[in-house]
C-alpha cells in the first residue's frame, strides 16, 4: 500500500489532491426500511481480517503523512446504504460477497426477517455502512 501511495504522489502535480474513499468496518447497522419508517434490527459482526485491512490502510496513510508525501486537509465519515428487496437477498449477498470480513448472526437474521414480514409492503432490508472520505494534498 505504501508503495502505491508513493506512485500516486509521483503522478500527481505539485499541490495535487488525493481522495481516499473507502468503507470502514464498524459493525454496520441492519435495517428494515419502508416509506413510513426505518427500524434497526441488529448489527453485523466484523471479522478480524477485515478490521486488520482497515488498520493497515490507516497505517499506510499515516506513514505517507509522516514521510511528507501527503498532508491531510479534511476527513469525514458518512453513511452508505445498501438496500435489497428482501432479507434473504441481503443474506445471500453477505454470504457470497462479503463473507471474508462480516457476518450476519442468527439473532440479527431472525430479527430482520421478522421485522420485514411484519412491515409495510414496500419494506426493504438495508445495511448502513460507514464510509470514510479524506482529502490529502501532495506534500512539498
Amino acid at each position, binding site marked *: *500500500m505504501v*508503495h*502505491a501511495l508513493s*506512485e*500516486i504522489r*509521483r*503522478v*500527481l*502535480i*505539485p499541490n*495535487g*489532491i*488525493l*481522495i*481516499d*474513499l*473507502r*468503507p470502514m468496518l464498524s459493525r454496520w447497522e441492519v435495517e428494515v426500511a419502508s416509506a413510513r419508517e426505518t427500524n434497526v434490527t441488529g448489527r453485523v459482526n466484523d471479522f478480524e481480517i477485515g478490521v486488520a485491512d482497515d488498520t493497515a*490502510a490507516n497505517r*499506510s*496513510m499515516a506513514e505517507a503523512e509522516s514521510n511528507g508525501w501527503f498532508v491531510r486537509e*479534511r476527513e*469525514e465519515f*458518512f*453513511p*452508505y*446504504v*445498501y*438496500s*435489497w*428487496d428482501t432479507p434473504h*437477498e441481503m443474506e*445471500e*449477498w453477505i454470504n457470497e460477497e462479503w463473507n471474508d470480513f462480516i457476518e450476519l448472526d442468527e439473532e440479527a437474521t431472525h430479527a430482520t426477517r421478522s421485522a420485514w414480514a411484519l412491515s409495510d409492503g414496500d419494506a426493504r432490508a*438495508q445495511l448502513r455502512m460507514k*464510509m470514510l*472520505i*479524506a*482529502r490529502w494534498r501532495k506534500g512539498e
Partner: protein
Amino acid sequence: MTLQKDIEGNEKKYLHEFADFKGKRVLEIGCGEGRLTWQYANASSLTIGLDSDHDALRVASIDAPHDRKHKIHFACAEAEHLPFSKETFDIAVLAWSL
C-alpha cells in the same frame, strides 16, 4: 435480485464537496465497473480509471457514455506500478481500494 447502492446519494455529494473536478485530469484507482467514475467524470477534462480486473474494465468501457468516450479511458494496471509520467494528474481517487 434488486440491489440498490447508496440510496441516500451521499457518496456523490461528499465526493464533490471534497474535490472540484471541473476541468481536472483525474486518475481513479480501483475503478471497477466505473460506478464511481460516472459520478464525476463528466466534469473532468480527462479521467483515467485503473483496475486489475479485466472483466470489470470491460463493463466500464461498454457503459461509458458515447459522448464522453474521448475523455474517459480505462486501463488494466496495479497501483504499485502506475504507467504514467510524473505530474500527470491533478486529482487521484482511491476508490474503495486502499
